[in-house]
């Protein structure tokens, strides 16, 4: 019962913050202009925070570990690299880059391939150490970044202009069309996750237990990897890479909610993510006067928190 109250409080908080964001300084004369400017941005932040939080949650479940998240493993960087690769191979005017849907398909396919290779290689070994997996992921992330930088360096300047937008996506220049389009895959994924929530609950007990309870773990992992790749594509396309956000949100969710049920956890983490990211952006805009970007703050506190988790995880 208590979890339900917490969920309600979170939901109310999320709605209030969204309303504050959308409604500030509105009156009968200017509402059309302000709403048309603000709603894509607010929607983008909401969708992206849900995508980040849920992908981290699922990732932790299938790896059965509390300190892994897809973005620390370099998935965000991989998305950006994919964009640069598409432009340098097919050109900035190709439909593969310009058409949001085609681009989305191509990026997720590539990310799927990568994650299958990396994790397939890794988890096949007996007794894989989670720290070396993390380290390989971190280094892969910086490797992808350097390759992307290298490609941009040798790229035609006109083509570079096309990529630049996707490299420095931020909260303030959101692609409006993409926001509305990304609603559908996100909604489908969430519905799907609620349907398989009970399977995920069992998965959290560990791979061996899940297998003995009659779950085809490899199949589930493959499906979930696909879901994660989709979610990362959505969030990175909407607001760009935010390294530690998923980690913070999911960890907080697990602290706040005693539940192990994924139907509860998915809802809770989504709501919490919206509250935190929108709230954080509001603080940056109104209290810090745009003097910093929210991703810097997230990296700073998230990094410290991550160290804390690493050490505690090691010491226990």
């Amino acid at each position, binding site marked *: 019962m208590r979890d339900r109250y917490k969920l309600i409080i979170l939901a109310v908080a999320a709605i209030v913050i969204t309303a504050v964001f959308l409604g500030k300084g509105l009156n009968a004369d200017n509402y059309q202009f302000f709403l048309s400017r603000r709603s894509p941005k607010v929607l983008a932040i909401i969708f992206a925070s849900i995508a980040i939080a849920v992908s981290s949650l699922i990732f932790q479940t299938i790896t059965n570990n509390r300190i892994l998240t897809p973005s620390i493993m370099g998935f965000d960087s991989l998305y950006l690299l994919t964009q640069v690769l598409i432009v340098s191979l097919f050109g900035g005017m190709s439909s593969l880059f310009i058409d949001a849907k085609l681009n989305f398909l191509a990026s997720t396919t590539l990310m799927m391939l990568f994650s299958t290779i990396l994790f397939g290689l890794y988890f096949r*070994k007996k007794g*894989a*150490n989670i*720290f*070396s997996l*993390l*380290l*390989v992921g*971190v*280094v*892969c992330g*910086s*490797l992808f970044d*350097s*390759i992307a*930088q*290298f490609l941009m*360096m*040798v790229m035609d300047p006109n083509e570079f202009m096309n990529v630049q937008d996707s490299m420095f996506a931020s909260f303030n220049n959101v692609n409006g069309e993409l926001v509305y389009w990304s609603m559908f895959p996100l909604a489908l994924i969430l519905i799907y996750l609620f349907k398989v929530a009970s399977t995920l609950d069992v998965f959290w007990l560990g791979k061996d237990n899940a297998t003995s309870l009659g779950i085809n773990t490899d199949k589930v992992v493959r499906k979930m990897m696909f879901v994660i790749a989709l979610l990362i594509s959505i969030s990175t396309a909407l607001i760009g890479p935010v*390294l530690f956000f998923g980690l913070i949100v999911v960890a907080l969710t697990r602290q706040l909610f005693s539940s192990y049920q994924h139907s509860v956890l998915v809802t809770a983490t989504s709501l919490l993510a919206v509250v935190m990211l929108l709230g954080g952006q509001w603080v940056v805009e109104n209290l810090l006067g745009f*003097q*910093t*970007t929210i991703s*810097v*703050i997230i*990296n*700073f506190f998230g*990094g*410290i928190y*991550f*160290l804390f988790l*690493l*050490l505690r995880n*090691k*010491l226990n």
Partner: protein
Amino acid sequence: MLMGLGIIILGLSSLFIGAADMQLQAILAGDTDALTIFFVSRVPRLIAICLAGAGLSVAGLVMQQVCQNRFASPSTTGTIDCAMLGYVFALVFASNSNSTVTMLSIFTFSILGTLLFVQFLQRLKFKNVILVPLIGIMYGNIVGSLTTFIAYKYDLVQSLSAWTVANFSSVLRGNFELLYVAIPASILAYLYASRFSAASMGESFAKNIGLDYKKVVFIGVVIVAVLSSSVVMIVGMIPFLGLIVPNVVSLFKGDNMRKNLPFTAYWGAVLVLCCDVLGRVVIFPYEVPISMIISIVGGVVFIYLVMRDKSNA
């Protein structure tokens, strides 16, 4: 013998590759333009490459002894990130001052930052081989976001990112001489090699054989910080170099630090030279900054080293 030949060939190719047309005959004939290019740009560049490559590799080797971890290096213990913070700090709070103040600020920050990390490691009870670089990289990320925070506030993001990308193309006579500090620092490292090796056996062992452990660690950190921050200041960030060179050398030569140090310095210089020549050839007559090439090469080698590490596979 073969080693000497290798670096001479690479050095010569480095001297004669470049955007400005310059022929050997012209130099021999005493052509003024050719001589100017040769002595103002090409020769300083070659010296800078060798010093930076050797210096950073030695720094990595020392760091690995001090941290008792073979994946420690200036780029995985936050030293380079702290140097960047020192640079931004100097830009913001001492903008009118000369380069000496900037340099001092960079030195101070990288020494203090690295000491903080080393202290932290010593508190840590369980030292997993992989955990140390992981913590170090995250520590670097935290310091880096602090740097970005300051840079963003004072509109320095652009000059910071221009400075981060390591590139030897800006090296000219008169602006790289600070790198000579690598020579005394490396000699000092050589003299202290056996003490570092003893320290790498752990604090209690070092104290048992009558070593002032704290002092040795401090000297090690100072050597590392001076070497890597001089490179950061003149050239920019060269990731993974201090990590892969000492590791690959010890793969072939064993673990004797005093014996390995000259080889480490040599192979560091050769690797940077190779990458620099490659970067100048790939999209001739333009060049690709060395930090990109080396982080691609270094990243791949690093992943290989981690994966082949039997103890945590």
